[in-house]
């Protein structure tokens, strides 16, 4: 314990220097903007700013503090366009659209923005505290989590998503299957065989998650807006000055705690990140709320769960990075590369060889979370007013942001056609009354499920028994069964 306190003292010594404080604030502010812009997510933000941080000649700990600020700042900012525009700002904010946007359309944009800011803050802070206390211990758990355990985790994720099955189970199932099919495009990760690429080189690496999100959500929303405008069905939204109430937080306290914990654990695991974390927590909360919830129509718990989870997972992903030198997410992989450029070998000895970097980063995350809350809450009113912009300005603005975002980051004109194609596909699905969330989740969970199942089976030499051999997987299968059965029993008892 004294070791932790000493470390934290060192860390705050580094993070509280005026220069590093300024970098935390700047990183968080830039991160919020990067997250809010559809198309640019934390991965791209960090990758773009890395050469700049290097070029400025920052010391390694300052550079890492800046880049990490952009990372969790983006998880914070992703909610803004999800809520206001129904277009996820980044991959972790897909679930935020489900209840965040309905709230905004009811004239509660300010309330949604401020509640989600507080949920993000709580998720991020809970995760940093857990990371400080249990970091090294958790990293052992993370590497012991084998491919067969990931399979169990995916089963749990799918089970909790069964709650997304709305009025029409068949359409949900079809949607999820379409997501699974999109995920199979590209070079197969196990055998190197190309699947569904039709000889197009641009498809070899598969379809980027960002492309699917922007296409299916962003473009489809755009087509929907244009259509409504053309048919004169568009309603102007009321001016809105709502704000979070203390009662909201008290009401959602258990959701916040559960989602922060689940999000953190999923973030710690290498290979799963914000998108899986937010999906699982949303599903779980919807299941727990049962009939008392109005999920999908603007339930505050449906907004809190994914936002607490995606921020918690961003901090969680730092655990294997700092303690083992193994990336916990795509963005932390780039942060590791950054350390290398600064001549710091990331790895198991980082805490002993470079305590100022490891602890400085952790301490800066405490400060960063507070900074994000301070930056975000006063801006709520400003952002909410954006909705009163006439649609004929707003629609082209979304289009421009999405196109510039995708092109400047991915840098391949093929992807622009891709988002248009996916957008038309998404718009047709909406016309047919399909929900788009199952498609996205099938896409994310499908490839994780497939790759890990095949990994597990190659480890065991084809013996399916490997799937039920560890306590972690048995525990997760147990949870999966509970999440499906408990609400059924509860509702039956209520009826009886």
């Amino acid at each position: 314990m004294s070791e932790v306190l000493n470390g934290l003292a060192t860390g705050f010594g580094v993070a509280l220097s005026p220069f590093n404080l300024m970098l935390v604030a700047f990183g968080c502010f830039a991160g919020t903007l990067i997250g809010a812009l559809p198309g640019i997510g934390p991965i791209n933000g960090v990758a773009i700013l890395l050469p700049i941080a290097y070029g400025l000649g920052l010391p390694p700990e300052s550079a890492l503090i800046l880049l990490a600020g952009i990372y969790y700042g983006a998880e914070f900012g992703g909610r803004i366009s999800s809520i206001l525009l129904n277009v996820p700002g980044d991959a972790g904010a897909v679930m935020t659209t489900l209840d965040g946007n309905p709230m905004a359309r009811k004239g509660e944009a300010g309330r949604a923005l401020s509640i989600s800011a507080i949920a993000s803050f709580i998720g991020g802070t809970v995760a940093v505290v857990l990371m400080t206390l249990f970091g090294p211990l958790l990293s052992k758990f993370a590497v012991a989590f084998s491919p067969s355990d990931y399979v169990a985790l995916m089963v749990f994720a799918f089970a909790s998503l069964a709650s997304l099955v709305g009025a029409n189970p068949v359409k949900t199932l079809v949607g999820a299957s379409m997501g699974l099919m999109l995920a199979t495009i590209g070079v197969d990760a196990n055998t190197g065989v190309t699947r569904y690429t039709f000889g197009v080189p641009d498809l070899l690496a598969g379809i980027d998650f960002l492309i699917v999100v922007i296409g299916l959500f962003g473009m489809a929303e755009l087509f929907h807006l244009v259509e409504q405008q053309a048919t004169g069905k568009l309603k102007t939204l009321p001016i809105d000055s709502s704000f979070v109430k203390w009662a909201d937080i008290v009401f959602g306290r258990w959701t916040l705690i559960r989602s922060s914990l689940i999000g953190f654990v999923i973030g710690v695991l290498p290979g799963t990140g914000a998108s899986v974390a937010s999906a699982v927590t949303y599903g779980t909360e919807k299941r727990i709320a049962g009939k008392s919830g109005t999920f999908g129509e603007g339930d505050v718990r449906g907004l809190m769960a994914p936002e607490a989870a995606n921020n918690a997972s961003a901090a969680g992903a730092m655990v294997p990075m700092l303690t083992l030198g193994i990336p916990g997410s795509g963005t932390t992989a780039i942060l590791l590369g950054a350390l290398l450029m600064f001549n710091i070998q990331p790895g198991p000895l980082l805490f002993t060889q470079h305590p100022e970097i490891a602890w400085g980063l952790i301490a800066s995350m405490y400060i960063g979370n507070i900074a994000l809350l301070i930056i975000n809450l006063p801006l709520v009113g400003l952002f909410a007013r954006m909705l009163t912009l006439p649609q004929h300005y707003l629609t082209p603005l979304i289009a421009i942001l999405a196109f510039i975002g995708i092109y400047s980051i991915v840098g391949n004109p093929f992807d622009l056609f891709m988002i248009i194609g996916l957008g038309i596909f998404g718009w047709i699905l909406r016309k047919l009354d399909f929900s788009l969330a199952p498609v996205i989740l099938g896409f994310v969970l499908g490839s994780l499920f497939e790759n890990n199942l095949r990994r597990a089976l190659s480890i065991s030499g084809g013996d399916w028994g490997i799937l039920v051999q560890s306590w972690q997987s048995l525990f997760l299968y147990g949870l999966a069964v509970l999440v499906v059965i408990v609400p059924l029993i509860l509702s039956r008892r209520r009826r009886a």
Partner: protein
Amino acid sequence: MKFVRTTVLGAVMAACAFPALAEINRPECIAPAQPGGGFDLTCRVAQQGLAPQFDRPVEVTFMPGGIGAVAFNMFNSTRTDDPNAIVAFSSGSLLNLITGKYGKWTENDARWLATAGADYGVVAVRADSPYHSLEEVMAALKADPSKVVVGAGGSVGSQDWMKAALLLKAIDGDPRRMRYVAFDGGGDAIAGLLGGSIQIYTGDAGEMVPHIDAGDLRVLAVMSDERLEAPMDVIPTAKEQGYDVSWTILRGFYMGKETSDADYQAWLDAFRTAYDTPEFAETQRSHGLMPLDVSGDELKAMVAEQSATLRSLATEIGLIQ
């Protein structure tokens, strides 16, 4: 086709000593991937290492798509004689070339210029593994390849897999009978090794350095012809242990096939001048690469040799019909 642009470090520019030669007036290095990966690092070696050679900084641009196929196609269609641009490649790109993932192009459709550096294959096990030498691993593989779980960061047929396949070839085993687990990148594979999912990891020397210091895993052999620099100098080569296995992961640059001899020579001179300075070796190390300075015809021969090895292996396992 200029995409994301990055400007260069003012500090390094101050070191400008040699004026630019020939027609290279806007030097550019194309990383055929998104920012942040191995090709990005390769281009940064050129950017930092060649800074004294040009009076303008080498610009790094990104051209992702088809694991390098988009860039290779472009330098065989519209920019075949671009005097200003070099494109980053690796041994993985060569494998993609010969297995037809880049379309009809082969290793003869580019002018191979110079290396940025190299990395070498390693065989690693967890610190508490029963295997203490390459010989013990090989004996186990020979006895029953399906009893040993091998893993690495790429799919079957990828260059990560090739390292494991070459081990089996060295003892006349059949790589297809190997129990191989494909992870998504080296980091996940190391996690798999530390967590006990796999027993043998065929990785790269560069990523082993921190783990050697920490002592959480043991490197049994490096797949290089000679021993590497410290701290890897304590690890014996596979050849020392009696197995004819070597695997060099090349990282370097190519130019369009129709680049004029003068332009090609100007770039070549820039690299060769840089190779002679201690700063270039330092740049290589700071980007996680081992010094390997090969250029011009020598590189062309090396690319041809590596392509031949890859082609015969890929044919044998059915990746090429």
